[in-house]
């Protein structure tokens, strides 16, 4: 993997926007929505085993939950005819089940019509509204606007307005298999799976994709974000489809999965945050949400069934690890994590991304002061987690070329076996987690946070985590010499792990230990009101917020480094 940061302009792999899969999708939106509705209907029927009573039950459950949602949790983004629609559904269901003149086949037909209506409605609601001109505008705002901010801070005087001395790529370093992903995106379909620590990630990834010259990816965004007009504009522009977390009924979930699966089969590159939501603990995701991931496996099998045996029908999973010195939401995330897992009294802090004022303040700080972000593009894999080469061929651990289609074969034919695919999805999930750890890039701030927290923990061996975090911060300090020694010990182990290919290390870690520590102290959670780590006047190390320190410390969990203490 390339060591240096990659900073050059990539030509778009598909210069003509009409060739972009996402544009094709939006042009055929109507047909696509219909196709998704049809396919969802089919899979719901399969799940209910073509049993009319079971189907009726599912429809009734859906209706009940939807009515409850409308009553208890309405959102601005909900369509105006929501209650009307469900009232009508109710009418039909009641009439059909009570009507003595209808025979079984007629009843079934009625239920199928209702199912049709609902899946069609869901499919329409989920579908993205990609508009190319909006995409262009958004991209320009992001790159241009950010570049202005950046140069304004660093280049003095009036010239700053026009200076191009600094670009976003100075702040955000892209490393890893960039050429491979470009190559594969032009041959097959990419499913990108990044780690998720901050709300910034969606915008960041969108920008990365465009910098790499890739056509836009579609991704699922929480419907709640569409409540806010300006967000809705950006989300649509970036190709987002809508995921409504309030709707947990079978029909909705099937439609959502079908949408993703069909889009992948159509060759539209997709993006999932496989952790589901932002990592509350600050640890790299260990348990993934497998629902959307399963659609990649399903789409691959479907492509093989359609006889697409070459690279054009192949789906590539690309893990991406994002590393920050600073996560704006860290204090509220870790509070949430602790209140879920622990005995800590639950109290909700204000969501740091709640007001646009706060967001802008953060952005200004971010661009004017400097806190680097690195994005590692991992090696691409097939849907079973085998590495692939730039031609899209899969290889097993011994470097032997294998055919991904073989995984779906029984008795010589490609077969559908949902239980098998479920296991494959688990397997893929484990592989992605492994790759996240391998691609993780250690920063100085991770090192100092990890070491400091472990030292504090060791000194208070008898306390469990929650009692430890309740220690008054004023009472805690670490003698610098000891801290430095421990940092060196951890760093040596990190270099050993790097040697063994188990993680990566940022270039700023190759200086003398004092410089690394200073760099780490300067950067770790640098914009929080209460800093996780600082050097006091005596040169010793103190913390102002132990929970946030714990959050940043967690980034290095999963490598058995804690055994050093």
């Amino acid at each position: 993997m390339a060591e240096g940061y990659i900073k050059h302009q990539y030509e778009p792999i598909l210069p003509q926007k009409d060739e972009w899969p996402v544009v094709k999708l939006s042009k055929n939106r109507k047909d696509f929505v219909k196709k998704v509705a049809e396919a969802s209907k089919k899979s719901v029927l399969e799940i209910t085993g073509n049993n009319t009573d079971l189907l009726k039950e599912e429809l009734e459950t859906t209706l009940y939950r939807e009515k409850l949602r409308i009553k208890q949790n309405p959102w601005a983004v909900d369509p105006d005819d929501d209650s009307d629609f469900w009232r009508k559904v109710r009418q039909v269901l009641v009439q059909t089940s009570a009507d003595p003149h209808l025979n079984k086949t007629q009843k079934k037909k009625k239920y199928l019509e209702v199912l049709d209506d609902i899946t069609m409605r869901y499919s329409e609601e989920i579908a993205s509204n990609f508009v190319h001109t909006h995409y262009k505008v958004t991209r320009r705002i992001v790159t241009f606007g950010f570049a202005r901010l950046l140069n304004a801070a660093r280049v003095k005087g009036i010239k700053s307005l026009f200076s191009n001395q600094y670009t976003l790529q100075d702040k955000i370093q892209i490393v890893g298999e960039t050429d491979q992903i470009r190559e594969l995106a032009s041959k097959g379909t990419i499913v990108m799976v990044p780690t998720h620590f901050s709300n910034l990630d969606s915008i960041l990834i969108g920008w990365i994709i465009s910098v790499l010259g890739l056509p836009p990816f579609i991704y699922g965004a929480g419907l709640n974000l569409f409540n806010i007009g300006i967000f809705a504009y950006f989300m649509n522009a970036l190709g987002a489809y809508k995921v409504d977390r309030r709707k947990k009924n079978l029909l909705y979930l099937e439609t959502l999965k079908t949408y993703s699966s069909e889009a992948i089969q159509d060759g539209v590159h997709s993006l999932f945050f496989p952790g589901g939501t932002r990592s509350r603990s600050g640890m790299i995701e260990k348990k993934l949400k497998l629902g959307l991931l399963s659609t990649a496996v399903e789409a691959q099998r479907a492509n093989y069934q359609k006889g697409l045996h070459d690279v054009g029908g192949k789906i590539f999973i690309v893990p991406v690890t994002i590393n920050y010195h600073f996560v704006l939401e860290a204090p509220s995330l870790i509070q949430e994590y602790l209140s879920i897992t622990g005995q800590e009294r639950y109290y909700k802090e204000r969501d740091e991304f709640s007001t646009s004022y706060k967001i802008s303040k953060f952005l200004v700080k971010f661009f004017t002061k400097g806190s680097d972000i690195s994005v590692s593009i991992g090696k691409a894999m097939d849907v079973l987690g085998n590495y692939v080469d730039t031609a899209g061929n899969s290889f097993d651990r011994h470097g032997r070329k294998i055919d991904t289609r073989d995984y779906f074969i029984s008795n010589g034919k490609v077969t559908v076996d949902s239980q098998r695919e479920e296991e494959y999805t688990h397997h893929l999930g484990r592989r992605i987690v492994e790759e996240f750890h391998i691609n993780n890039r250690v920063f100085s701030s991770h090192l100092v946070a990890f070491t400091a927290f472990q030292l504090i923990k060791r000194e208070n061996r008898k306390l469990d985590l929650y009692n430890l975090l309740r220690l008054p911060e004023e009472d805690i300090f670490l003698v610098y010499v000891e801290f430095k020694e421990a940092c060196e010990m951890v760093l040596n182990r990190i270099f050993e792990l790097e040697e063994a290919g188990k993680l990566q290390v940022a270039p700023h870690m190759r200086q003398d230990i004092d410089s690394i520590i200073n760099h780490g102290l300067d950067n770790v959670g640098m914009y929080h009101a209460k800093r996780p780590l600082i050097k006091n006047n005596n040169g010793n190390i103190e913390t102002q917020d132990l929970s946030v320190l714990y959050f940043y410390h967690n980034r290095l969990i999963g490598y058995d480094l804690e055994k050093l203490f």
Partner: protein
Amino acid sequence: MGSFGTAIANILAEKSKVIAFARRAEVVDEINHEHKVDGLAINPIIKGTQDPQYLCENCDTIFFMVPSAAFQEVIRSFSPYLYPYHLVIHGTKGLCLNLPEGQKLSQIQTISRENILTMSEVILKETVAIRVGCLAGPNLAKELYAGQPAATVVASKYNEVILEGQRLLRTDKFQVYGNSDIVGVELSGVLKNIIAIAAGALAGMGLGENAKGLLISRGMVELVYLGNALGGSVKSFIGLAGIGDLVATCNSTLSRNYTVGYRLAKGEKLEEIQASMEEVAEGINTIRLMKAFVEGRGMRAPITENLYKVLFEDLKIEDALQYLMKYPFSVDVDFL
């Protein structure tokens, strides 16, 4: 070809074409020309080969019935010819030590779960096959060969592997159950060997049925605890592959593990016993690994620990029994 492999090949041959792999040319010749293995007649449909590639290219489903000591080696020799479309089912009861290169068990004393591989984990590690299953249960080869009624468990995470195993193996005299907890089923077959050694020892001391009843039930508790710690589920241990196999082995004078315990109790040393046995009694290796695992975990397993001392530290078997009788077990069953 071992006796268990021969018995299974015969059962399979009732419904399907079977190719049998043997490492020695004489055995292959005997299969192909005389339709016999070690003088025992087998179904003439069964073809013998020494060539893993030939076998892999002609079979979609492969049953590995290999002694555990040779398991890894055999799997490695098949690895280059196995593809993701192969279904693999093994019937080997043993564990494999998985240490970083250059390390030995004698150097590190304690081990954790990552250092122990079940046989299906060996297959997953060494090959690209992923649809893997195992076969376990009270299946004494001689009785199977004689066509006596019996049952077995096919365990796999994949339903299709279980169904295929059932389709291929099920006959009027051989019942096949399914289980999705493959690790639990494998561990049942492995851990019961510890108790089998103990059962042999009790018999060697001339003790009666009360003692055996005591051993089997206490042994079961220990098996459940060890098995849980290694990632198996209680349900599997109280099933056919667990209790079923435990009872069969603890009563069988045919079992190698039982024989080891019996001869120990008669005063022989472990080296003498091992020198005079053709195949390794798997229980000895299992006890060694489990003792290191138990110590790494900080848990207790009194039967295993005392057998370890008897086997490797010259504790007298009477003293071990004395110790167990004094051990403060207070609750009968606390795992359900």
